[in-house]
């Protein structure tokens, strides 16, 4: 098969034609930069904190954020990388090796914070204790603590935005998960810019890879020769998301454009959803323990932390 734009061999098939290596890279980068511009994800004078793990999504978004800054003559010294080490045996330490190397090569300062240092235990040790009294899977504990540490440390660094590597597949999965569970409150927080309300205690999270399929991100990382060792979180198959992911991949294979359709329909409904949620938003207050944002006296991260300490 040949590229639709030149005589080179194609590496990727889109719904409207095939692309060779160079034209795929152009197409992908153009899509990311258009997303940043359309949703105004990056401001000219703000410090940017990229949430990184060392996987394909975060390395790609870090690389392209830097490229975007350079292309638009925005000082790249405003760019920082922040990683969270959850403490998952045989998993995170591998991706952190690639991450350290990547940040060094691309001259981006990297900060690594860990569950163990900040919350007292690794995820491996914490979640069986937390699960004794509540039916929480590791992913729920991990999600609460990761978001907590990212927000806390991005704020500490003076960042105006946290940039994440969430892609089209992640978003389509999250939309369907919230739909199936009738969780309109969580659904209203999705979109290329996370969150329903702005608040000094929250750093906005933005998603430049919002319209990039996971397969496209993997191909981009491969064609750009990013050093990424294949790793998969050992807990990922225990989560609800995994079943939704398989279902959507089956649908996408049979009906091309399914994931894009889900996200586009959702974006059309999002303003209505956000307006509805704004009416019933709880007042944001400071957690009485850690002084971070919370909608209760004690935030979820501290509740989990105290459960561990009380054992």
């Amino acid at each position, binding site marked *: 098969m040949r590229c639709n734009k030149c005589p080179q061999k194609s590496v990727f098939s889109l719904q409207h034609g095939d692309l060779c290596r160079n034209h795929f890279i152009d197409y992908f980068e153009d899509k990311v930069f258009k997303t940043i511009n359309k949703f105004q994800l990056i401001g000219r004078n703000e410090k940017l904190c990229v949430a990184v793990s060392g996987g394909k999504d975060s390395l790609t978004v870090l690389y392209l954020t830097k490229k975007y800054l350079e292309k638009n003559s925005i000082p790249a010294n405003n760019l920082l990388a922040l990683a969270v080490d959850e403490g998952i045996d045989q998993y995170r330490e591998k991706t952190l090796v690639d991450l350290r190397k990547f940040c060094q090569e691309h001259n981006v300062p990297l900060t690594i914070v860990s569950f163990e240092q900040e919350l007292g235990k690794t995820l491996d040790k914490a979640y069986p204790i937390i699960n004794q009294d509540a039916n929480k899977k590791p992913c729920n504990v991990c999600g609460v603590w990761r978001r907590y540490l990212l927000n806390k440390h991005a704020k500490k660094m003076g960042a105006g935005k946290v940039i994440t590597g969430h892609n089209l597949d992640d978003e389509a999965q999250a939309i369907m998960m919230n739909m199936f569970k009738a969780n309109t409150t969580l659904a209203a927080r999705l979109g290329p810019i996370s969150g329903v309300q702005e608040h000094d205690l929250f750093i906005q999270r933005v998603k430049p890879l919002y319209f990039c399929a996971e397969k496209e991100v993997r191909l981009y990382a491969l064609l750009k020769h990013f050093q990424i060792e294949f790793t998969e979180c050992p807990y*990922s198959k225990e989560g609800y998301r995994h079943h939704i992911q398989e279902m959507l991949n089956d649908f996408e294979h049979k009906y091309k454009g399914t994931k894009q359709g889900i996200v586009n329909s959702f974006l059309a409904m999002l303003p209505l959803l956000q307006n509805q949620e704004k009416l019933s938003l709880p007042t944001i207050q400071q957690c009485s323990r850690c002084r971070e944002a919370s909608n209760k006296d004690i935030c979820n991260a501290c509740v989990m932390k105290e459960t561990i300490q009380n054992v």
Partner: protein
Amino acid sequence: MHLEIFNEREGSTILIEFAGSKVKDLLDHLKLNPEAFLVVRNNEVVTEEEILQDQDKVELLSVISGG
């Protein structure tokens, strides 16, 4: 034709005898969803329509990673 198949997700290499011709036939034969894999043939990324040749070395790279 005979193919050498490396599956990144499983970390295993197998030799198979394959009666089909295209990459998409191979994925179908192995019961793998093309949405979840990129295919590299003799160190070159190929699309599902690519026709395979005898003795090709095929790498199946997992699109899904992380957690």
